[in-house]
Every structure is written in structure tokens, then in C-alpha cells.
């Protein structure tokens, strides 16, 4: 069996070159544009910063993994594309954060994503909430987006240059995620009686997990000036939510507050199956390249 380590031929180029020889068929061939845009490669994170990067990377990765389910199942084609876009952005953010987090222990982004167990994950439980119906997904995404937006806005000023750079790149994309979720909150709230009812149920179901997002942890004391103190983000979050809820004529749900614990490895029961599915193939072939 012959194997090669050389550059693969431009497979598509060959085909097109063979078959196009006239003016209408004169297409330019796409290059591999989806190069890995992972920020911070080559920089080693101090251990505490690595732990903090895990929080943010795991939030993004777990949400992306949840959203990936919708692709080919969305209510309309435009939403297959939009949700796919959001998932793609979040994977990009996760790759940067996890790659940076892994640098402290000499691990790659994939070792961080695929070879940590549930208790080693640091995602907040809001991101772990199941997709539910489209209204649940929108409610969760709206909260996630508003939180991440407030967070990245401030993280751009971090003393840690890599975190600041990841935040600066990510916030532009999260801006779109918030806009997407906001538009749908307005449509579902102001659409039909059914959509309004479902959205209200969606928000009621995910709201218990809001509180955890804004709790400070001991790590925040250690990383003053580097990490953003979550509690300080609450006013910006509340202001944004209040504005959208006012327009949608929604009320902030009242109910219980989940105990949380994602930042210390205590997770909602949805995370185990999510990771099992995500990691199954990688773990079947440890050390393999893909």
C-alpha cells in the first residue's frame, strides 16, 4: 500500500480544468479558505489563565455542539444556514480558547475537547441546556449571546493579550448571534398565540440557569485585571434583556435558581450524553490524526 505525505493534488482544480474551455464555464476555483484561525498559538498560558480560558472555551464548544443538531432540521433553510453560522463561529471561539488553555499543559485543542471527561469540563449549565423546541433554543441562545457579548466587550481590555485578542475577534460574531436571537424573540413573542406561549415556556425553562453565569469564583480574585468579574456584567446583561423584553412585551421569569457548579465540574445531566456523542470516534482511535 502506498501512502503519501506530499501535498494532495487540487482535486477540484483538475476536474474543472478538464471540463471548462469556454467563456460561460470560466469559473475561478475556490481555495481552501477555511484555514484554522486559531488565535494565540505559540503562547503558553499561565495555569490560572488556562483554567479561565477553559470556562469560556467550554461554554462556546458545548453550545456549538448543541446547535449542530439543528443543521438539516431547522424550521426553514435560512435557519439551517443561520444556526450553522452561529455554531461555526462558536467552534472558532472554542478552538482559540481551548488551544490557549491546553498550552499550559502541552495539550492540543482536540485533546482538550475530546479527551477530558465530564467532570473536567468547565461550562456553565446554561450552555448545556437541551435544544428543546425552536423557542427553547432561541431563549437559550439569547441569554448565552447577551452574556458572551457583555463578557467579551470587557475581556478585550484584559491584561492577557491572547484573551483580549480572542475576545476582540469573537465579539463581532457574537454581535450577530445576539441580533439573530433578538429578532426571533420579537417574532415569536409577537407572532402567533402558540409561538408566544412556547417562547414564554422556553424562557421559563432556561431562566434558572442565568444566575450561575454571574457568580464570581475564587479564580476571579486570582485573575484580577485578566479575567472579567462575572458579577460586574449583570447590569449590562439586565439592560439589554430589559430592552428586548419590553419591546416583546415579555416579563422576566420568576422561579427557582439552579445550583449551578459548572465552573467546578458539576454539570447538568445533558452534558454526559452530549460529550459521549461528540467524543466517541476520537476516543475509539486515541492518538490518530484526522
Amino acid at each position, binding site marked *: *500500500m502506498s501512502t*503519501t505525505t506530499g501535498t494532495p493534488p487540487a*482535486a477540484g482544480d483538475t476536474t474543472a480544468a478538464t471540463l471548462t474551455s469556454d467563456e460561460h464555464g470560466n469559473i475561478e476555483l475556490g481555495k481552501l479558505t477555511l484555514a484554522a484561525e486559531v488565535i494565540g498559538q505559540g503562547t503558553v498560558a499561565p495555569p490560572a489563565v488556562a483554567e479561565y480560558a477553559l470556562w469560556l472555551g467550554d461554554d462556546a464548544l458545548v453550545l456549538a455542539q448543541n446547535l449542530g443538531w439543528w443543521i*438539516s432540521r431547522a424550521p426553514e433553510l435560512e435557519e439551517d444556514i443561520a444556526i450553522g453560522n452561529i455554531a461555526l463561529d462558536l467552534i472558532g471561539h472554542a478552538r482559540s480558547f481551548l488551544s490557549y488553555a491546553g498550552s499550559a499543559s502541552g495539550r492540543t485543542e482536540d485533546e482538550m475537547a475530546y479527551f477530558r471527561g465530564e467532570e473536567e469540563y468547565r461550562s456553565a449549565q446554561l450552555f448545556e441546556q437541551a435544544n428543546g423546541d425552536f423557542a427553547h433554543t432561541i431563549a437559550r441562545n439569547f441569554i448565552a449571546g447577551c452574556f458572551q457579548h457583555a463578557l467579551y466587550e470587557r475581556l478585550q481590555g484584559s491584561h492577557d493579550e491572547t484573551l483580549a485578542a480572542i475576545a476582540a475577534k469573537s465579539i463581532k460574531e457574537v454581535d450577530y448571534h445576539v441580533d439573530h436571537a433578538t429578532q426571533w424573540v420579537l417574532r415569536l413573542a409577537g407572532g402567533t398565540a402558540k409561538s408566544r406561549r412556547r417562547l414564554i415556556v422556553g424562557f421559563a425553562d432556561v431562566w434558572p440557569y442565568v444566575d450561575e453565569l454571574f457568580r464570581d469564583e475564587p479564580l476571579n480574585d486570582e485573575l484580577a485585571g485578566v479575567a472579567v468579574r462575572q458579577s460586574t456584567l449583570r447590569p449590562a446583561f439586565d439592560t439589554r434583556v430589559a430592552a428586548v423584553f419590553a419591546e416583546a412585551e415579555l416579563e422576566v421569569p420568576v422561579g427557582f435558581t439552579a445550583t449551578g457548579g459548572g465552573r467546578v465540574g458539576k454539570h447538568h445531566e445533558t452534558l454526559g450524553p452530549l460529550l459521549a456523542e461528540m467524543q466517541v470516534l476520537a476516543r475509539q482511535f486515541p492518538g*490518530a490524526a*484526522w
Partner: protein
Amino acid sequence: MTISLPTRPIGGDISAEEQQFNDLIAQDSRIEPRDWMPEAYRKTLIRQIAQHAHSEIIGMQPESNWILRAPSLKRKAILIAKVQDEAGHGLYLYSAAQTLGVGRDEMTEQLIAGTARYSSIFNYATPTWADMGSIGWLVDGAAICNQVPLCRASYGPYGRAMVRICKEESFHQRQGFEILLELMNGTPEQRQMAQESVNRWYWPALMMFGPPDDDSPNSARSMAWKIKRFSNDELRRRFVGMLVPQAEVLGLTLPDPDLTWNEEKQAYDMGQPDWDEFHEVLAGRGQMNAQRMQRRRDAHDEGAWVREAAAAYAARQSATTERVVA
């Protein structure tokens, strides 16, 4: 084979507009939405473009099967981008078909009802990760061979949509090739996974060019109208000719014992796909026909309340705007 334009019935004088249409075709110019066109030309195009659009949409499913299990974050991102491209291709094509006077809702209904066709290749299952490589390399490769000539299809909106689609398809094929290359450079188990997958996809990919020329009822007219530019068998031969050197680079064996270079013909001699299987899948009796349709129906039905909400909200918004303007 000599192909000429369809002849007129005896005694039928050709109208000025039909003459103009024939002239445009003869000159290799493009027919645009407002130009006169024969009804059969319009119908043929609607059928073909809608079928192509449906294929893109159903074609998202075999790959979405691996989005959640993709074995690296980079592969996951590339796979999502690819499936997303397919949704985008479906949208361009529905738009192109709409210029011929058919609505997107109508086309969607036909797909859901099972009265419209889509490419049979998407009724095959994707049990292994290597299938993501085979779909890119073989299925998208075959699609490119079919589609590049369509970039100069006589109907303008279709040709232009195809230019855009072909650009992205070449990236898709390349990523499939790379998946297989990584597997072939990997462990013995990974190499076995790649070969096993190529064994399953090779023949179905060759079937994508359609039945043999002597059994393809619509081909001749489509070629005369310059909707289609090469015959099924001709494209199939070109495709195999392209695969052979790439298979050598990969170290994969193409599963056709009759595949040999014919010095005299300067082309490959090759075996025939199992055309009975082709007709079975076409008739709805393939591995995944029922599941693919079910998924599409479910997404459509379960999303109905969301689309209704969006429509109701939009109607209310525009009513409000009108009141403000008034």
C-alpha cells in the same frame, strides 16, 4: 451521435419569437427570464433545477449525520461549513427556478409529498466517518463533472447559479480528498475504514451520471437545447479518468476489476454499475429513502409554527409601518 433541434410538426410555421429563441440557442447566447421560451423548455428546466435544489437539501442529511461526532474540531467546522453551503446551493437553485414561474412553497410541497425527485445518491447511508471523505471525493467529484458544463447552460439564471455552486463544490471535493488522505496516512484501522467506504461509494457515484446513453430518454433533447452539454457515458468516462491518478496518490483501490487502460482508445475500459440497484433506489427502495423523506417532513411540519409566527409578525410590522406612514 448527431443531435438536432426538435423538429416542428408538419405545417406549423415557426413564430418570430420562437425563431429568436432558436437563434439564441444556436449562437450559444443565454435565455433570460423575460425571453420567450417553449413551454417544454420551461418545464424541463423547472424539473431539472428543482430536482437539483432538492438534492442539495436532502444531501445535507447524510453529512449532518457526522457533524456531532466529527473527530476533530477543525473537521467539525469544515463539515458544518460544507453542509451549510449545501443549504445555500438549495436556496440559489430555488431562486433560479422561481424565475421560471414556480414558487418555492410549491417545490417544497412536491418534495415533502414525494412527487419530486432528488439525486438517488443521498439515499445511501453514512455509517462511518470515512463516508465524509468518500462523499466529498466521489459524490461531489461526480457532481462537479455533471455541473461544470451546466455553468454554461443556456438558461441564464441557472448557469449563473451553477458558476457559484461549482466554486464551492471544488472546495468540497478537496476536503473529501483530504479526509481520505489523512485516513490513508493513519493507522491500519483508519486505512481499512477508508477503503471500505470507497468500496461502498464508488459504484453509486458512477450511477450519478445517469443511465447509459442508449437508455436515457430525456438526454437528447436537453443536449439540443444546450441545457446539457455532454452525454452520461462521456461524463462517466471523464470522471473515472480523473479518479484513477487520485486513487493512486491516496493508495486506494477502485473496486472495479475490469478497470484497465485501453491504449488504442486512449481511455479506460470499465465495468458497469449495477443498474438494477440504480432503478431500485430510484423507485424508493434504497437504504435510506424513507428516512431521508421523513426527516424533511418532520423538519417542515415541526417548523410550521415558527414560519407561521414569522409571517404573522411580519404582517403586523408592515401594517404598523403603514399606519405610521399614513
